[in-house]
């Protein structure tokens, strides 16, 4: 008997029941919600404010540039300090043409100094960014470079995690990786002393923009 059959048989013997597929499939289709916290609710302005507040509480830096400002301008200080190529999403690459020509869309490498991603959405309840992998969207960009920038449009700030999943479901083909990011990487494994920049980025910069829904292009 294969391990698969062994395990399933053990479970069925212990549960002493047989056909319960109906209840399972019903639940998988209906996807009932649990309690959605009050902090995940509110109008757009409230959610935007909460997103910024929670993200900063998690040690992310939030920049809110004027409408229409291109990323190279908003990130001029970071670009000046970073040698080599800037790893970015295909959807953002157009913004880098002209002034800074070093923006490339490819998987990240250990030597990369700066990456700029487009977030699918931001979640107000905990200041969390939602990123998805895909064609033209290297997820490694969010983890290898010491400085990671994520652009998100104010229109893409949702209240809670459930609303974020609605966005992912609406975006089409299911991404291989969906990553929630809340602040820069950290560890407290040595003497419970919290230090930023464990293996992932030392800095997370969120560019919260108005009317530039790059991800949806």
């Amino acid at each position, binding site marked *: 008997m294969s391990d698969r059959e062994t395990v399933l048989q*053990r479970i069925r013997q212990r549960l002493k029941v047989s056909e319960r597929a109906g209840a*399972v499939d019903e639940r998988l289709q209906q996807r009932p919600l649990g309690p959605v916290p*009050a902090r995940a609710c509110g109008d757009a302005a409230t959610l935007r404010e909460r997103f910024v507040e929670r993200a900063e509480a998690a040690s992310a830096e939030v920049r809110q540039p004027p409408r229409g400002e291109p990323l190279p301008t908003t990130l001029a200080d970071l670009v000046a300090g970073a040698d080599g190529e800037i790893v970015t999403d295909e959807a953002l690459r157009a913004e880098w043409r002209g002034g800074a020509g070093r923006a490339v869309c490819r998987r990240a490498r*250990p030597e990369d100094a700066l990456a700029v991603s487009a977030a699918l959405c931001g979640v107000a309840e905990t200041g969390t960014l939602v990123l998805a992998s895909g064609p033209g969207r290297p997820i490694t960009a969010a983890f290898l470079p010491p400085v990671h920038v994520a652009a998100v449009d104010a229109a893409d700030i949702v209240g809670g995690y459930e609303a974020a999943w609605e966005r992912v479901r609406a975006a089409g083909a299911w991404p291989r990786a*969906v990553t*929630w990011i809340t602040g820069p*990487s*950290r560890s407290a494994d040595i003497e419970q002393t919290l230090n930023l920049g464990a*293996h992932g980025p030392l800095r997370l910069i969120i560019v919260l923009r108005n009317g530039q829904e790059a991800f949806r292009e």
Partner: protein
Amino acid sequence: MEVTSAQFRASARRALGDERLQTALASIQKGFPGKRATALEALPEFAATSDHVTAVRDHVNAHLDVYLERFEAQVQAAGGQVHWAADADAAGRTIVDICRRAGARSVGKGKSMASEEVGLNEALAAAGLQVTETDLGEYILQLRGDHPSHIIAPAIHLRRDDVDTAFAGHHDAGVRSSSSEPAELQAEARRVLRERFASADVGITGANMLIAESGSSCIVTNEGNADLSQHLPRVHIVIAGIDKVVPTFEDASALLRLLARSATGQEITVYTTFSTGPARPDDSDGPAEYHVVLLDNGRSELLGGSLEAMLRCIRCGACMNHCPVYGAVGGHAYGWVYPGPMGAVLTPQMVGIERSADLPNASTFCGRCAEVCPVQIPLPELMRHWRERAAEQGVESAMVRYGLRTWAALARRPRLYRRCARLAAGCLRLLARGRGRLTRAPLALGWTQSRDLPAPARRGFIERWQAGER
């Protein structure tokens, strides 16, 4: 990993006398409980979410076979492979096989208690693979040949100079940090491990959840190491217990609202990643192969019995963070992979009660573990279950067995009991000589090692009441 749970008493005594360990342990009880309390206060819906997730976990456990089949089908539909492992050996063999077929030489590993449980590193090393633990705490332990003493803070028993010494013994002088400040040591590990991430052929991670609706694995970290282990290598292998399934992303979201708050007092961990199958044809990055190894190893035996609630466990560590016994002796005294109250329930299941009878017994049943458990596992009740099994199998000490039997026999015969009690009281009072307490007493066992024994009354309450005294 060798099971040393049978030496609990000796290990506990050693731990209590180990000043360095005691300093480290004190920081757990100072840190985690307060942070958890603050995080719970900031989420008024925590209790309602706990009720909801508890119900979801029970629902899944009652339909576990079906959920596993649905999960398997969805993994396959996304281009991944599912492997079933009935026990620890099967899990090790399966993972070694996947690595061999992929022609792998090096493995980068995220922190996984399931992998500790099956002794995966030993199996991989025996097959000639070079394994690097990438979680900072686990990496330090690997260099020291040590094991985790806490399920979410594996190196909690170490201090900065222990880490400094471990790094000095394994890192080239060129990458060494200039001091033993935690920030410096962390930066040193970062420098060393970046190359390992990039060069690993296979990444192995655990899973905090498996999502049935999509066949996804979910893993949370603060360091980002599990992400580097699953997005960079050619092959991603997930090892997860069969108890990790939840139905939907909505259910996962509710559970995640409990997990970090209960564990470290964070609202959410820095990284929460849901992986579904291998890279798609046009993806910019991601592994070419995605495998999930579903581990039973005694879990299915918990179903349908008085221990079933243990399968709700989300491995947050709140029970050990709040346990006064764990706080006194630390995780290693428990003698196997899972320490604290949850370990006192799981270890007997996985290694046998005859090798671990002290674990469920070494609790005052103070109930703090059950109070803080986000999925409402009645841990003292489950420990009592194991005490009953230990008593049935006669693995408890003869002293306890005969003591209790004598007591129970006496307590059923009131007149005999009163005569004996009066006799005992008389003897103890003679020994106390009017001081109201004894510094030594026959049959007081461990009591008078560190405590005086208050002297009994000359005549008992019942006797005096029956004699009309008021």
